[in-house]
């Protein structure tokens, strides 16, 4: 769970449900259950990684229906029904994921952290703490006329959020689905 998550992410819950089932309960005795679970897991991980395509939610529903109808035992049918419930209750959240954003902040790959230049005091605390080396920029030096401002590279950022609490002026903001949070 990301340090910045505001609430439980439905896609993460769905992943947890299906992955726990696959690892602990799935008996692997019937073909549709094994193959559906593999397909569902891959769609869910696409959704939380930002590589989803539109229609993925519909595809998930279709897998749930098929699995509910063809799985050999109750274990498989139950997980399909539970997943279908999640999809129904959080349909908007799933649609958000399809277009690459996670409203709850649970999917770290979908988070965007930005340094607000006006607030930044150029202290460099964010660069020191960033485990991914995603923060670029340098502290100003007395003998250098100008310095490169601090910036977070989206391609390197893992969305861990460690930079947020160390920023005393609160210059680092998180954007979820286009809205700034915190």
């Amino acid at each position, binding site marked *: 769970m990301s340090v910045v998550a505001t609430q439980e992410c439905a896609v993460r819950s769905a992943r947890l449900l299906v992955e726990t089932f696959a690892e602990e309960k799935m008996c*692997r005795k019937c*073909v549709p259950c*094994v193959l559906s679970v593999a397909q569902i897991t891959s769609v869910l991980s696409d959704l939380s990684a930002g590589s989803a395509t539109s229609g993925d939610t519909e595809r998930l529903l279709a897998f749930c229906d098929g699995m509910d*109808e*063809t799985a050999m035992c109750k274990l498989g049918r139950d997980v399909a029904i539970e997943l279908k419930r999640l999809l129904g209750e959080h349909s908007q959240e799933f649609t958000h994921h399809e277009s690459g954003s996670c409203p709850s902040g649970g999917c770290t790959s979908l988070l965007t952290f930005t340094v607000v230049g006006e607030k930044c005091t150029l202290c460099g605390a964010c660069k020191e703490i960033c485990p991914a080396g995603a923060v670029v920029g340098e502290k100003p030096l007395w003998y250098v006329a100008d310095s490169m401002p601090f910036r977070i590279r989206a391609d390197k950022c893992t969305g861990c959020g460690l930079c947020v609490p160390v920023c005393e002026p609160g210059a680092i903001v998180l954007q979820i689905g286009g809205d700034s949070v915190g």
Partner: protein
Amino acid sequence: MDNTVKVTIDGREVSVAQGTPLIEAAASAGIRIPYLCYCPGMKSVGSCRLCVVELEGSRTLVASCARQAKDGMVVRTDTPRVEAARRFVVDLLLSNHPKECLSCDKSGSCGLQDAAYGLGIPKTSYPMKDPGYPLDCSNPFIVRDYNLCVLCGLCIRVCESQSQGILSFMSRGMGMKVGTAKDLPLEESGCDFCGSCVSVCPTAALMEKGRQTRGREWAIERAASVCGYCGCGCETVLNRVDGRVVRVESPDPTAFLCARGRFGLDAYEHPERLRKPLIRRDGTLVECEWDEALDVAAAKLRDVRESAGVGSVGVILGANATCETALALGDIAHRALGDARVGSSARPYGFAVLSRLEESFSDLSVVATSDDIEAASVIVVAGADVTADSPAVGAWITRAQQRGATLVALDSRVTGVAKRADVHLRPRAGALGRALALLAKALLDSGGWDQEFVAARTSGIDELRSHLAQAAGGDWEAETGLSADALAEVAASLAGAKGHVVFVVSAETDDSAVIEGVIDLALLSGCAQGCIAPTTITSNVRGHFELLGDEEASDVVGSDATRALFVWDDDPKGRTFSGSELSSKLAALDALVVATSFMSDTAAAADVVLPVASVAETSGTRVSQEGRVRRQSEAPGTDSMSDFEVLSRMATGLGTALPWDKAEACEQAVATVLAAHRETTDPTSHRLTFPAHSAFGDVPEGSADRPTLLVGGTAFHFDDGLVTRHSALTALEIEGDLFGMNSEDMASLGLVEGSTVSVASDAGEVDAVARTLDSLAPGTAFVPRWSSNAKELLGDDPYDPACMPQHTSVHVRVVVVGTVQGGE
């Protein structure tokens, strides 16, 4: 009680026997339900979910293969709900199945292809999930491509039910895969390459390597035939494309064929296969045309007979020759060659045992068939290594076990069967006859024998009692190494058998006490029909026995009068040790005509060599060890000459003609003779007799440096290995110079795996490579039957009437003279 039930399927009322799966009930009404994991004759698991149907009263869809029909069931197979479910399953499977149908060998007989076609699904609507498993094609016969697997589990179930049970499902991340323990390649996994898994696989996940790119499925012509590689006489279906065998199938997917039967015909495609006759010119054998070869062969034999008189020409009939060949050669010998003597090489492979059975039971209905074995409640395997010598018998036994049969093994070795046995008694090597006698005594003492049957139907029980009294006198328990308790336990399971008891024994056993003991036990158990299974390692012992009779067996080669020989599909010289008299006799003959498929030691000394057609190239009849008469298929369009044509032209060349104008007439004559042997008499009309008992031989004392030699078969070579040496089977076979010993014995001699040893017997001395074989008891050593070491150490003349082939028994003391540390 009426045991039919009525079910309604798609509005049609169907009556079927109780217990019929719904899928079969539908089939009987002409309603085809698609399936992948179902196979008639095997336990259904309902895992593929393709055969789901709607069942009134059930909320969920049910698998029609796994649900048995019950009276009043109402089933629908044609609703949109059912179709949607099936489409879902096929769609999912296609998303896991890289599409290679264009060049896939299975195309045309693939279960998944058929299912997709039936539902009209051209391609998956889901993202492709290519599992990316590596191909296992390192062994010579089976290609495993699990990317094409549909996870039906049939291979796992068939391996479990009739073979080694080495396959199982294993988790692979989210997915699942079939694999061996530790996912080892097949040849390292204990697989015996019976190919049953390939036979049941609905897709190309498991394919015969030899079948690849050799013709599309729809180009295959199928012909029912019989395997010629051992006495089991399994039925085969030869798959030919353009006249060439591209695959051997079993008649139904779950019928067992062993590695030799399924994959061993490749030998006949080998470049060294003789395809043209050879004739000796200026001391060397050169190719010639059939006309010339047959003319010269006939002239040579005729000249000897005319100059040296009656009895100067002998005929050797190979142990695997068909009944027709036996009959035709017999006719040539008697009429065309003027009372030439015929010796069948099949004689040492079981004539003695078969005639002992005839003596005691008056006919051979006592011989157990596969059905008898599969239905048995207790099976006693006495000294027969069936997994090596008669693999199908091993499969039948495994199936019987799955039905709840108790398996008892009596063998000093931990054979394949012994590993699976409920009770394994390990009498000392050479003490099997005594062990059986002790068992008979334990059964008598326990009072659990069938006293009513013995009193009413048999004679000789008093003689048996006095014979067994010896057992009480001597210290037999120490000599056999078996405890009274263990024997009493086996006697109790024989006495408590709820049904049929079957004794499996090696037909070429040289120890007459073994077959006598088995007959005693069968009679004491109250069995007279289908209760003794003598296994034979060659394919037509029973046929030769029925056609020729035991008295025909003769020392044709050894006779001084013999000046010329006509050897049909045999290699007497190759079968014997280098210094044998037989070799020098063969060299001194005035004429030697040899018919063979491959150049052999005997053929190399011949004046004329005639190529022999393979089991797949000539029609003919074989009688399996169970007594079943089986026909080889006709093979139109091959370039070899059929046995009948060769013999017919030989007869003409010798100035007579066979009494049959065509092969079919000869087959008819064979059928008549064999039918006479099968005339059933009232089994209660004749008295059964306990056999006359011969004296027990000494039990040899084996030790590490003077082990008792056990010569036995191995899983992949057939008989003397002349044919199978040219098959890819060789790649899986152990080395010919192997000298197997128990690890304790190896250690006490300071030997390591691969050490070179010098082994000497009274007959000869050879170099060999020591290998650990912990299936052997301490004080015994193993040499493969087909190896030259076996011949040199045994020093037997295969045609000496006093000698048996000594396959599973003990005879020769071996001294390990020197040990050289081998570099492994």
